[in-house]
């Protein structure tokens, strides 16, 4: 094949299949709906609506907070578990890591559905709490509200947090830990000054996966969110369904895009290689 054609194929295909739809989405956010017709003229109509109506901006901030909370909880639970996996040996390690991968193979919708039946007013968790005497009667605290979205997203995304941290812990050369011990460092000191800094890139990868997937999800809030658990992602999706305002939906997604790109830059900056390399 001629060189020019080869380059054109390799750059043209991704441009046509990936860049073009992406560009169409960006342009669409500057169009607007007039009744049932799309007005194909550039304007800031949607952007003005976003700022002037006091529904979407608060909803957006609430969803950012939700995604941050999910990420923070997942780090706090996921990091110790990744450390535990890294301390295991041989077959036990292999089996335990696989156990944390298997939940990822299970249908997303089904997991949410099953979690809903566990967390629901009549669900397993409530019955357990009533049976053990913790609660007098079932609580509506776990289902069809904001807390339910928080709990469900954390459970769904936890494996995606654990695995990258585990990988980065595994990459730490044993010689560094031995050197630290030989030089008289207490294990806690070694953890704080050697292990933790070297595993940060894994935390950053896991956190960005979790944050990006949590902030854009619309299935979980629709299924377990009820009235208070409505999120920004669900608002975007409704523009392509019941609300039928694609240009406004595209505009709402541009805001989402800005935050996600900012998060990625932050992640790249936090996860950058620092100091002397091992």
């Amino acid at each position: 094949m001629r060189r020019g054609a080869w380059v054109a194929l390799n750059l043209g295909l991704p441009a046509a299949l990936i860049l073009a739809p992406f560009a169409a989405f960006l342009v669409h956010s500057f169009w607007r709906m007039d009744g049932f017709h799309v007005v194909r003229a550039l304007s800031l109509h949607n952007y003005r609506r976003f700022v002037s109506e006091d529904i979407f901006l608060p909803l957006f901030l609430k969803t950012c907070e939700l995604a941050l909370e999910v990420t923070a909880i997942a780090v706090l639970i996921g990091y110790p578990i990744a450390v535990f996996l890294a301390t295991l040996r041989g077959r036990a390690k292999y089996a335990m890591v696989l156990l944390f991968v298997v939940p990822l193979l299970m249908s997303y919708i089904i997991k949410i559905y099953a979690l809903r039946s566990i967390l629901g007013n009549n669900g397993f968790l409530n019955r357990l709490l009533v049976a053990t005497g913790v609660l007098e009667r079932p609580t509506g605290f776990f289902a069809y509200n904001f807390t339910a979205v928080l709990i469900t997203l954390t459970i769904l995304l936890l494996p995606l947090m654990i695995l990258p941290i585990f990988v980065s812990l595994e990459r730490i050369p044993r010689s560094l830990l031995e050197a630290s011990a030989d030089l008289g460092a207490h294990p806690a000191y070694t953890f704080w000054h050697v292990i933790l800094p070297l595993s940060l890139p894994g935390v950053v990868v896991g956190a960005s996966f979790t944050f990006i997937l949590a902030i854009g999800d619309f299935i979980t809030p629709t299924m377990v969110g009820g009235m208070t658990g409505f999120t920004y992602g669900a608002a975007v999706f409704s523009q392509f369904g019941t609300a039928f305002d694609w240009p406004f939906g595209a505009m709402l997604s541009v805001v989402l895009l800005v935050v996600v790109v900012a998060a990625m830059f932050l992640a790249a900056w936090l996860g950058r290689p620092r100091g002397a390399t091992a």
Partner: protein
Amino acid sequence: MSASLPARIVLGALAVASLVVLFGPLAVVWFFSFFRQRRGVVQWESFGLDSYARLLKNDSILTALGNTVVVGACAVFFALALGTLFALYFHNRGHGRQAQQFMIFLPFLLPPIITGLSLLIFFRELGLDRSLITVTVGHTLFVLALAYRIILTQLQSLSRSLVEASYDLGANRLQTLWYVLLPNLRTALLTAAVLAFALSFDETLISLFLVGRESTLPVRLWGMMRVGFSPEINALVTLIVVFSAALFLAVARLVRPTGEDLTRP
């Protein structure tokens, strides 16, 4: 890494508690694939393979399952072909390879909702109706990054002398690709195929934007959410999890590095 015994016990307890929570949904589904419940009460005498038998008669679900497999297989095929093409281009230091790589990673890095609606808008501007074909395109682009990354990693680990030897012996580019590179990329291609298929099989967020009249399994399940699930769904999900876990184990065993001893402390 090592830790003191009390620390390991605490960490282990946390890990076990998390596994209970992660596998809770799975256990619920598995349990109700054998029992029925009426108004939230388990009917213990209903134990049996009834829901599995009913699954075999549920055409709408089996059709959706079939669609999902076809879409997944096509997406895997295209993603592997494009992934190999782009990985070779990057490896051979083609022009604009960084830009190419950025474009490939884009649909994987952005929230699926953005990938989904971008393609939806794009297809409508082109005048294409939503169908299983549009879903396949969406899935292909979504799993492409994964396939590309896995293939490129293995390509970069191959010795350059392999390709040089092939050229020295008179093989042309195509022969080198077919007889030298592809056989050496076998593990990467297989791993990529399985992971890509698994991702495609469960893909819901992008699919919901792109499905037409015929739906894939996750979309079908989404549609059934409001009316509630019939018992055969539990049977289906149980079978899918068992099947995918078996497939995953087989691949994990296959690609486990044999040279590196995993039993080493």
